[in-house]
């Protein structure tokens, strides 16, 4: 007797219907790169996998009226190769390029990355910087939540049973915005983030920073923008000295959230360093890996 059954959804409506059939605990299956790993260590938590990867609209990446939309079943490879995303949110494309190796990127999806909600999820810092909105569908209708409310903690989200993430949306960043993503892993590829950082910003005609969003990954239990540091940067001319102070402020902010943990002696220094680098990449045009 198989431990679980399998169904394939051809449309979003069929996926939602299958996910809500009574007496069958169903979960959506994207790339499977988290589910099949979790199955090895966790007791079975579903009766049926519902494959959503054949639903065309869940693979859509588009922009309309200044709002960018990314389908939940878009793979990391599709995202990193998307000219639209490379143009409007290069740090998100870069984050996707930093996930796992090619085979993982070909399978793993943005919807899965967010639903799995690991504190180290590579797509989260950029999506949080963008104030992305998570769009959910259930028999009760559509629901939209800011990503910072959707993800409530490590591997914890506010998704309700039977709800399907259909897509993410975010307002197109200001024209001329530059962004960067930096990941520290134990090796360059096929690694889990020890720490990462995403930032996006612009300067005004006078040369001062007038728009800045900065979000570290794997630094806090829930991936959040460090708004006190953003406030500190706003209105200032971008200089190395400012970025050094911003790095110190990022680490202080992280410790104010997490307290001093076993990893703090490392992360305190590392977060300061990647904060300086990510800001230099954006405002001083210093080269970064992607």
């Amino acid at each position: 007797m198989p431990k679980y059954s399998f169904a394939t959804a051809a449309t979003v409506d069929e996926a939602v219907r299958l996910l809500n059939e009574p007496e069958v605990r169903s979960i959506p299956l994207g790339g499977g790169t988290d589910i099949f790993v979790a199955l090895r260590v966790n007791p079975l938590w579903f009766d049926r996998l519902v494959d959503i990867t054949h639903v065309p609209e869940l693979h859509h990446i588009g922009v309309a009226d200044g709002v960018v939309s990314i389908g939940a079943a878009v793979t990391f490879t599709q995202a990193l190769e998307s000219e639209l995303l490379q143009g409007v949110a290069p740090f998100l494309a870069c984050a996707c390029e930093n996930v796992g190796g090619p085979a993982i990127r070909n399978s793993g999806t943005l919807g899965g990355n967010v639903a799995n909600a690991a504190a180290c999820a590579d797509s989260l810092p950029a999506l949080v910087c963008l104030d992305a909105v998570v769009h959910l569908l259930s028999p009760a209708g559509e629901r939209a939540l800011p990503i910072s409310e959707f993800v409530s903690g490590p591997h914890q989200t506010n998704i309700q049973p039977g709800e399907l993430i259909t897509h993410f949306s975010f307002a197109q960043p200001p024209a001329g915005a530059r962004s960067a993503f930096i990941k520290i892993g134990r090796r360059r590829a096929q690694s889990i983030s020890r720490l990462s950082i995403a930032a996006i910003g612009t300067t005004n005609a006078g040369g001062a920073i007038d728009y800045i969003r900065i979000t570290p990954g794997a630094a806090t239990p829930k991936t959040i923008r460090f708004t006190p540091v953003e406030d500190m940067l706003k209105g200032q001319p971008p200089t190395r000295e400012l970025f050094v102070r911003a790095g110190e402020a990022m680490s202080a902010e992280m410790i104010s959230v997490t307290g001093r943990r076993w990893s703090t002696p490392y992360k305190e220094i590392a977060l300061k360093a990647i904060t300086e680098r990510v800001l230099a990449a954006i405002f001083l045009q210093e080269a970064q890996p992607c």
Partner: protein
Amino acid sequence: MLIQFTLNNQPVAVEAPSDITLLALLRDHLRLTGSKEACEVGECGACSVILDGELVNSCLVAAPQVSGRSVITIEGVRAPDGGPNDMQQNFISYGAVQCGFCIPGMIMAGEALLLKNPQPTRQQIRVALAGNLCRCTGYQQIVDAIEATAKSRARQRA
């Protein structure tokens, strides 16, 4: 459940449980043991196959997920006479094979790369192999063999 797909360019229909991975389907139900089972968490690449033209870890694909799709395994990579193809021959010539366990995955990663990018740089080859672990060779010979294959195929196309 009945799973019907194209395997190494041949249609197959196989009755299999719904709760197995593509790797188990290939190895245990279709007796194709060239794809190796090792880490089973997508870290080693030994189980790599090409699904609809893209490299995937078959240990992380649900077997029924390949219904109606095309899977190429290491058994489908060969010269017309059944012997090693040019890439496999280059792996031998360049000393890219020692214990051999990772090699089916390495060949699949190399072939998947050349499908998308027929003339990769060495750096692009290294990126393409980033999900495939080899504990014997140190990778240089594997990169050399794939690079040589890309160059000789480019010459043949010219």
